[in-house]
């Protein structure tokens, strides 16, 4: 297991392995994305309360769910960077921060698009998820700006790793405190309604497909950007030179 772990730490090995996996991942992503988007946005029956607006939710829920994965991902990558000094973990973390910021932004955008119809307002401070997502975005932007401010790449790697770990703990605390601050959005109602009724299965299946699709998209973009990062940072290594020569 450890052999595998340290092998993965080698950028060259990762580059070669991810090169083999990439076509399959892209194919799976395209299939899931097409099914999810076409079905979810065009054919899904309207919700009894929310009407066709609920279709935005299919995208929103999937993106939002995925964007919650970034800080845990960066937490793990940061720990690996600090403990094992693995360069690959830092390359992943660097791109994860940027992607995470985009995902958080899209979550906010689709969320407020939905909110603009359902609540009649683009932004609602009483919605704890919107607010904690906003602060997650701020924290990610903090990590990104710290990296761009530090010149020495080794110091930047470690500093960002530490900040991601602290940030991850913080995101959890912020999430709970914001929810406490305003228990309104989709948390249990003050008076429990009889919600034992079955959910429309289509919604869940469509959402599930979209979640898989978005996770695949995340994986593919992370792999692609990490591969770029590898070539950039290892440009002086022999295997990268060989690769470039072969491509010519």
């Amino acid at each position: 297991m450890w052999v595998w772990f340290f092998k993965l730490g080698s950028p060259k090995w990762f580059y070669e392995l991810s090169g083999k996996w990439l076509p399959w991942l892209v194919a799976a992503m395209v299939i899931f994305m097409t099914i999810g988007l076409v079905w979810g946005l065009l054919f899904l029956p309207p919700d009894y309360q929310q009407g066709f607006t609920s279709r935005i939710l299919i995208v929103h829920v999937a993106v939002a769910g995925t964007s919650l994965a970034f800080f845990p991902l960066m937490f793990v990558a940061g720990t690996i960077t600090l403990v094992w000094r693995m360069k690959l973990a830092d390359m992943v973390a660097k791109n994860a921060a940027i992607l995470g910021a985009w995902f958080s932004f899209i979550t906010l955008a689709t969320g407020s698009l939905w909110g603009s119809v359902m609540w009649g307002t683009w932004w609602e401070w009483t919605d704890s998820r919107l607010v904690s997502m906003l602060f997650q975005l701020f924290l990610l932007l903090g990590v990104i700006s710290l990296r761009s401010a530090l010149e020495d790449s080794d110091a930047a790697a470690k500093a960002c790793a530490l900040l991601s770990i602290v940030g991850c703990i913080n995101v959890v605390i912020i999430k709970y405190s914001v929810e406490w601050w305003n228990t309104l959005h989709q948390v249990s109602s003050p008076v429990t309604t009889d919600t034992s009724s079955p959910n429309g299965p289509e919604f869940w299946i469509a959402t599930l497909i979209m979640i898989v699709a978005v996770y695949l998209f995340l994986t593919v973009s992370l792999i692609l950007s990490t591969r770029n990062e590898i070539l950039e940072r290892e440009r002086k290594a022999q295997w990268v030179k060989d690769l470039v020569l072969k491509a010519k």
Partner: protein
Amino acid sequence: MSSAAPTASSNSDTDTIMLAARGLFCARDDRVLFKNLNFDLPEGQVLQVQGSNGSGKTTLMRILCGLNDGYEGSIKWYGQEIEDQAANFFSSLLYIGHRVGVAKVLTPVENLRWSCSLKQAVSDEEIMAALKEVGLRGFEESPCYTLSAGQQQRVSLARLIISPASLWVLDEPFTTLDRKGVERLEQILQRQAQAGGSVMVTTHHSLNIPELAMLSLG
């Protein structure tokens, strides 16, 4: 966890040497500063590190002190990796870098009281005596921003007199000193070597110390 007892390893030749570096490699942002660097620093020696500007002298000094961990290779303190016994190593180490560690708003006495008490208990009499020895008599209670760069350097060098540390790592300690100061510092270094301690020092001066050894970088 590694035990405190000496490990039965193959390189027992380094077990009795105060500081032994083997196969040091350091690169900063793709530029190799040094590679496969080996040296020993036994007790009672002053090791002068030489090299042109940018050859990695300062980096080497900081690596030895554990301030910089961007290196590969092994550094052993009496046969044990310094990372495994940091607290032990730090209490025997005294480092003075380019930035001498003298707060400008504090007086020399206040500065020394703090920086020495990080390592060992120190009395005001000892501090006064040390300041006198480095030629700062009369400046004990003036804020350090009123002192010249050379005088601030002397404040930090007063720690050498107080400190019982057996290993001194001094990065360019001579730069701002006048001729008399240089001579005095040479004497202090020599005294340390004769007492069985050792010194690692970077400077472009040619030192006049019998216990001197050289290490060239780049």
